């Protein structure tokens, strides 16, 4: 066992224990950890986005120059238009000039929807619908496929509200609830597993990185 000599590791240990101290009851150490997390992550992200997006993708490229329509230019003046549209977004903070941001938003929404909608439709709806149309037979896969088909139809029936959930339709829609419950159960089980994993991760950090215990062998 060799204790870590890196002070930042011990800062990590302090904040880990501070966060988990909330399980006993709310306390100033937890509050400190909470506020430091929010402050550091926002500050760090702002700096990275500024250097990566504005400096990296706008300013540097503008200054370096390049090609516009196969013609070399000393400065990328075409970058001024998106940069201005970006600046317009900041005017949302000033009610009197907030209307200027609508141009940028209109472009964003229009281009985003135009590019995204057909692809999202293909990826999330059409592909999923076609993968529900599967072969049914008396093999193991065939029976699994039958369960999938019934599940899709029953769950969709549950969300069909133009017909009262009564009689055979009501029973079929009720079967949809069972399918949903199984889905929620699986998600909840996985969520419990995820939370445990995070705790295990912090314990491994304390035991291995801070206390220097060799847990691998």
């Amino acid at each position, binding site marked *: 066992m060799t204790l870590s000599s890196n002070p930042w590791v011990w800062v990590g240990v302090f904040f880990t224990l501070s966060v988990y101290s909330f399980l006993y009851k709310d306390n100033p150490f937890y509050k400190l950890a909470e506020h430091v997390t929010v402050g550091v992550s926002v500050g*760090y992200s702002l700096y990275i*986005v500024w250097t990566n997006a504005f400096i990296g993708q706008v300013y540097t490229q503008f200054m370096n120059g390049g090609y516009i329509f196969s013609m070399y230019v000393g400065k990328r003046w075409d970058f001024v238009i998106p940069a201005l549209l970006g600046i317009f977004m900041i005017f949302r903070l000033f009610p009197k000039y907030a209307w200027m941001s609508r141009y940028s938003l209109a472009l964003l929404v229009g281009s985003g929807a135009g590019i995204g909608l057909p*692809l999202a439709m293909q*990826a999330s709806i059409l592909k999923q619908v076609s*993968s529900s149309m599967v072969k049914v037979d008396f093999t193991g896969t065939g029976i699994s496929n039958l369960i999938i088909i019934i599940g899709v139809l029953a769950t969709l029936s549950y969300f069909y509200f133009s017909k009262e959930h009564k009689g055979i339709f009501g029973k079929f829609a009720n079967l949809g609830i069972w399918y949903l419950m199984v*889905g929620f159960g699986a998600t909840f089980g*996985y969520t419990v597993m995820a939370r445990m*994993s995070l705790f*295990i991760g912090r314990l491994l950090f304390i035991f291995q990185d801070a206390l220097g215990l060799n847990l691998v062998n």
Partner: protein
Amino acid sequence: MGFWDKLQRIDRRVIYLILAIAIILPFFFRLGLPIPVTKEVKDIYDYVETLGPDDCVMLSADYSPSVSPELNPMMGAVIRHCFERNVKVIVMSHITVAPGMYQPILEGAAEEYKMVNGIDYVNLGYRYGYWLVVMRMGNSIEQTFGVDYYGTPLRDIPMMRNIGSYQDIDLLIPLTGSNFLVWITFAHEPYQQKLAAGVTAVMAADSYPYLQSGQLIGLMGGLKGAAEYETLNNEHYEIPPRMASIGMEAQNWAHIIIILFIIVGNIAYFASEKKKRTKFRGE
């Protein structure tokens, strides 16, 4: 107050303490419980097994530190597998804080296998733009990123001379704690990029439809998925089990304790309800 009522009113902190002990003890007293490998993880592994020195796997670390205990082991396991087979590796991210987190994993594995930055692997770092980045990479990775994580222009990196766009990437694995749909929508659908995903356990159940539809070739879910990949690495290349495999033993015990709590809690609930009903009827 009867025994069953007392059991229902037990302080939650006692439960936390029992759970903490159940998780800590297996780190020191291991039973060596097996980690069975599921088909969805093996499919990823088998695909990487078909790749060689001329091929490239790209990993996108789209997660923040809050879920790193689940996804860091996946990254380590996949990178080691690729290095073992001399497959080229590219790592990138859509999350500002991710590069600082995955860099030690990438460089640690590179040091173990004597891999060289720019020849065997490239760290592209973070790029602002999310789905725009994903779309643009279909045309040109060089134009999208320009420079790597260390500021070296991509045109000066030997490995990137043969890797221009998705056409040159054999498998792309987003490791994500929020959403991999952006990769399916903007990389798989328009460019037919082969995808597998590593997701947090919370997301795993919702990810299966994409596996069934063939949009993903495989799926690693949570710490279990990472442990399965480590198990396969160990079986094929004798790479020692790492964080995920160590954690899984503790995870198993935690699950056993939780299941016991649920059973005992339900018995206590029904027993005390029955007692109340009997008392009400005056029996």
